[in-house]
């Protein structure tokens, strides 16, 4: 439970940072704001220093939180929703539907998620909605498999038989009776999905496939790479932010799966 609290506190901090980014660091984070290559704590106006072009690292970091969290949460949510719907249909209907849906799931699983995202982005072009789509495309399969396994065991339970004897329609049985009860283990996947999404987004930005009009941590790390020896802080600062975010989500996930296990 304490790991859940630490994670939640960190994440809350990040969310506040994202929400109040224009207040904390006013102005365009992509605008040149001072002398180039200032080291952290060297200047009071640029607490974490400036990059090669003289853009404020702190402003980039704060505004980068927005993109990172936005893309991560929406793509994780999309992955979980798509995955649990596919898993429920597959497990509940069984038969040919199950076979077809599971082969499709496996087809997606055999391609690395990052490659799938890269391929999608190179077709659609980078923007926040396409990033969400691209990342969730490789991320929904796990949720589908977990949900399916859970649904397979739930559908044999008496309360599902009872719902059938009451004359409930199959659609309602699947999505109102079974899915809410199957969602627990899937929800504890949320943390992994969010963490994966953050890393894929960062990696895409690093490769230059991120939204060019937004600062992201991945693009900051990529920018800093060219001057890694002269100014390692340019890569280290956003790198630490990335680690803290993934860690907070991971801690929350650990806390969630623990409480889930305590339930009957």
């Amino acid at each position, binding site marked *: 439970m304490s790991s859940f609290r630490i994670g939640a506190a960190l994440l809350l901090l990040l969310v506040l940072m994202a929400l109040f980014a224009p207040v904390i660091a006013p102005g365009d984070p992509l605008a040149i704001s001072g002398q180039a290559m200032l080291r952290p704590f060297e200047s009071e106006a640029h607490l974490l220093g400036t990059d090669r072009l003289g853009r404020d690292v702190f402003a980039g970091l704060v505004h980068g939180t927005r993109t990172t969290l936005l893309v991560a949460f929406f793509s994780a949510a999309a992955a979980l929703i798509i995955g649990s719907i596919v898993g429920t249909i597959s497990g509940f209907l069984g038969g040919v539907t199950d076979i077809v849906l599971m082969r499709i799931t496996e087809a997606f699983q055999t391609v690395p998620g990052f490659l799938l995202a890269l391929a999608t982005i190179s077709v659609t072009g980078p923007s926040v909605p396409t990033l969400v789509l691209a990342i969730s495309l490789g991320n929904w399969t796990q949720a589908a498999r977990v949900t399916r396994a859970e649904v397979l065991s739930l559908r044999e*339970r*008496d*309360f599902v*038989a*009872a*719902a*059938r*004897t*009451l*004359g*409930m*329609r199959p659609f309602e049985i699947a999505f109102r*009776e079974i899915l*809410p*009860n199957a969602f627990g283990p899937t929800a504890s996947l949320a943390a992994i999905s969010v963490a994966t999404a953050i890393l894929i987004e960062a990696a895409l930005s690093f490769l230059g496939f991120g939204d060019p009009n937004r600062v992201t941590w991945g693009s900051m790390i990529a920018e800093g790479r060219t001057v890694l020896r002269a100014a390692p802080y340019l890569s280290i600062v956003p790198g630490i932010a990335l680690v803290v975010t993934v860690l907070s989500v991971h801690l929350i996930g650990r806390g969630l799966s623990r409480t889930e296990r305590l339930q*009957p």
Partner: protein
Amino acid sequence: MMDGSSSPLMELRNVAKRFGDHSHDGLKNINISLMHGETLAIAGSSGSGKTTLARLVMRLTRPDEGSIHLLGQDITHMGGGALRRMRPRFQMVFQDPLAAFNPRANVKRILEDPLRIHGFASKSEYGDILAQTLERVGLGTQYLQRLPLELSGGQRQRVAIARAILTKPQLIVLDEPVSALDVSVRAQILNLLLDLQAETRVSYLFISHDLAVVRAFANRMIVMEEGRIAEEGYTEEVLANPQANATQVLIDAVPRLVI
């Protein structure tokens, strides 16, 4: 009456059900008929096919051979909307009342479901119907917001009975309805079922392995053994003069008070 009270309410004709390749599993050549207002007990040790029989009658599964008739209609291969429209006529009470409820649904939702699904009443009437039904099964409206986990075993089974009678069925399949309950609560639940039968002439298909309960509850009984009917007749006669080995085994299993 739809087809005169002399014709059976429910009938199984030459029903067989196989599981896998094992010829000794499942059910073979089952013929049963149940009249209006009657209670028929299905007794048998575990593995004799009692629960499979209940699932067949409820059309939760289909027989491999034979036919199932309810209220003069062949429901053997009925499906979809036609079967759903028949569902209010036959209901079931499960052995483990906790497993028979969606763990996330409270009593209100559990009891509103049958009304909503079949459109028996308008939403504004739900409150009154639920209050009446809860009172009928010996519970009060203070239980409406409770989850199944927050009820005692006896209370759960009362809610299960309430759910079963909401659609005013002519047949209720009772699958060991008291075997999971405390001995002190059993008599209350059985009496409740008997009272309901006296009021509504509902028929019961009563599945049990406990002959003491069967004797108190059923007019006729069937003893099952390895998926076949080993013996059938009036409860008193069968118990007074058991013919089949399976019946004798069940009689010997009834605990006696030795002083």
